[in-house]
């Protein structure tokens, strides 16, 4: 950081947040400014800390499942999937094929709802108010499928250890197919609104560049890494829950800026629809619950499972001491790790770009603070 500022003026320290609408929750960013230029930042987190990992040590394996939904509440289904897969790995069981197919459909739908919420709020931060209404309109349709399937819209608790609790309802396939048909033209509509819009392009192009090397240094994953041109997607790299059966591409960008991250996420929504279409065509018949007893008591050991959540690599590390409660549950939340790169990205940018960069990282503070 430079010692002297422009015209030897004092550097100005201001707080952005914790109640700033563009920090997506309760993130406090202490900005050191030289006029409009950002010299450095410091993130203060923990306003939403609930001690979820500690709660996990005091609950049985099944009881902890609803809590993980409350970390990344925008993508609760992905969180549930990660946790269930980790405990299933400890138990050495695998969900039946039917359960796996349904899990894929629901997590991909959840990826779409998460990206829609990101797109809406990100556009709102930058000043485009229209997309948020359209995004929430389509998100509503997906949430209705969640509600019909498991009875909740946001904190779904859709999966159980070993498979699923709820059998598919009549008309699930039709609803999902109708959603896919409805949704693809809508993505084009968002693109029409934003992609070539001059204000949008000027606000995003070249802002918050984080190269692939830097991403790897910081451990940044998800669309931020892929926008830097690194073709890394855990669904391809280490397939879980039967992802190897589905055909899809990994969208990547070249410029590693905010605009490319936007394009990557738009492409990801299209790829998600592609996966859902393939999965819904061939949902196998059979049981939905694996061989898991009423009391889950995994043998002593530890398991780490990471999945590709909408925001990046979501990992669960569960240690068992052969009792009904986990000895330790450690979560590797994508938002927390991605937030580290904020300082690197905003240095030298303008204050108005900070909002754009926080938006493009797609953080959820429930997950950052846990």
């Amino acid at each position, binding site marked *: 950081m430079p010692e002297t500022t422009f015209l030897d003026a004092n550097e100005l320290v201001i707080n952005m947040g914790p109640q700033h609408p563009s920090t997506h929750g309760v993130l406090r960013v202490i900005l050191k400014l030289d006029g409009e230029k950002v010299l450095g930042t410091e993130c203060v987190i923990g306003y939403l800390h609930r001690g979820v990992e500690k709660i996990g040590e005091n*609950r049985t394996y*099944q*009881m*902890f*499942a*609803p*809590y993980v939904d*409350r970390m990344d509440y925008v993508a609760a289904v992905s969180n549930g999937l990660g946790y269930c897969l980790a405990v299933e790995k400890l138990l050495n069981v695998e969900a039946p094929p039917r359960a796996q197919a349904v899990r894929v459909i629901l997590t991909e739908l959840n990826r779409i709802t998460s990206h829609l919420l990101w797109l809406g709020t990100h556009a709102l931060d930058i000043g485009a108010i*229209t997309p948020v209404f*359209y995004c*929430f*309109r389509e998100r*509503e349709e997906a949430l*209705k499928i969640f*509600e*019909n*399937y*498991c*009875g*909740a819209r946001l*904190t779904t*608790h859709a999966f159980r250890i070993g498979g699923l*609790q*709820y059998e598919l*309802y009549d008309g699930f396939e039709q609803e999902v197919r109708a959603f896919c048909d409805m949704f693809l033209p809508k993505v084009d*509509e968002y693109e*029409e*609104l*934003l992609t*070539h*819009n*001059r204000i949008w392009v000027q606000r995003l192009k070249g802002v918050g560049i984080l190269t692939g090397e830097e991403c790897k240094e910081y451990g940044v994953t998800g669309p931020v890494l892929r926008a830097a041109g690194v073709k890394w997607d855990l669904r391809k790299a280490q397939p879980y829950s039967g992802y190897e059966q589905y055909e899809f591409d990994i969208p990547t960008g070249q410029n590693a800026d905010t605009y490319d991250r936007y394009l990557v996420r738009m492409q990801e929504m299209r790829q998600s629809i592609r996966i859902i279409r393939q999965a819904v065509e061939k949902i196998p018949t059979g049981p939905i619950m694996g061989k898991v007893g009423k009391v889950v008591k995994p043998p002593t050991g530890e398991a780490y499972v990471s999945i590709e959540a909408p925001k990046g690599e979501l990992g669960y590390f569960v240690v068992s001491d052969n009792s009904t409660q986990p000895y330790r549950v450690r979560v590797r939340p994508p938002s927390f790790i991605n937030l580290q790169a904020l300082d690197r990205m905003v240095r030298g940018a303008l204050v108005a770009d900070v909002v754009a960069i926080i938006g493009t990282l797609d953080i959820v503070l429930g997950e950052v603070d846990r």
Partner: protein
Amino acid sequence: MGKFLRTVFLVDLLQGLWVTFRNQRPKYIYTEQYPAERPKVAERYRGAPRLNINPDNGETLCIACNLCALACPENLIVVGSERNEQTRRKELTYFTYDISRCMFCGLCEDACPVDALELTQDFELASYTREGAIWDRQMLEEGPRPTQYRC
């Protein structure tokens, strides 16, 4: 040249405006006029808990097995039971359910072996006092009775 003309004639902005214009149709309205127009929640919706009674004789279906209380992550269910000396079976005496701490995960209804405890489609759970959020057996059997406003 084409790019220049497109910039001058604001093609990108007009394109966006055209999208907004296309979406003016009233059938795209999703807002619910809530108190007047009540939303229809899904069949499996996890809302207010209900303790089912046998419609024929009005007796509770609950067998006081305490499994729901054990399954609850928040320990908010308290089941009281008494052994009936004549029939030699456990009988339910009281049942409290703390709505204020409930996160509607549905583990209690999954655990119930006789489908007595169920999360229903009622979603209006506000009360004027803290004590009002702790539901006793009578409240659980009758269900919430919110005022239904109509226009």
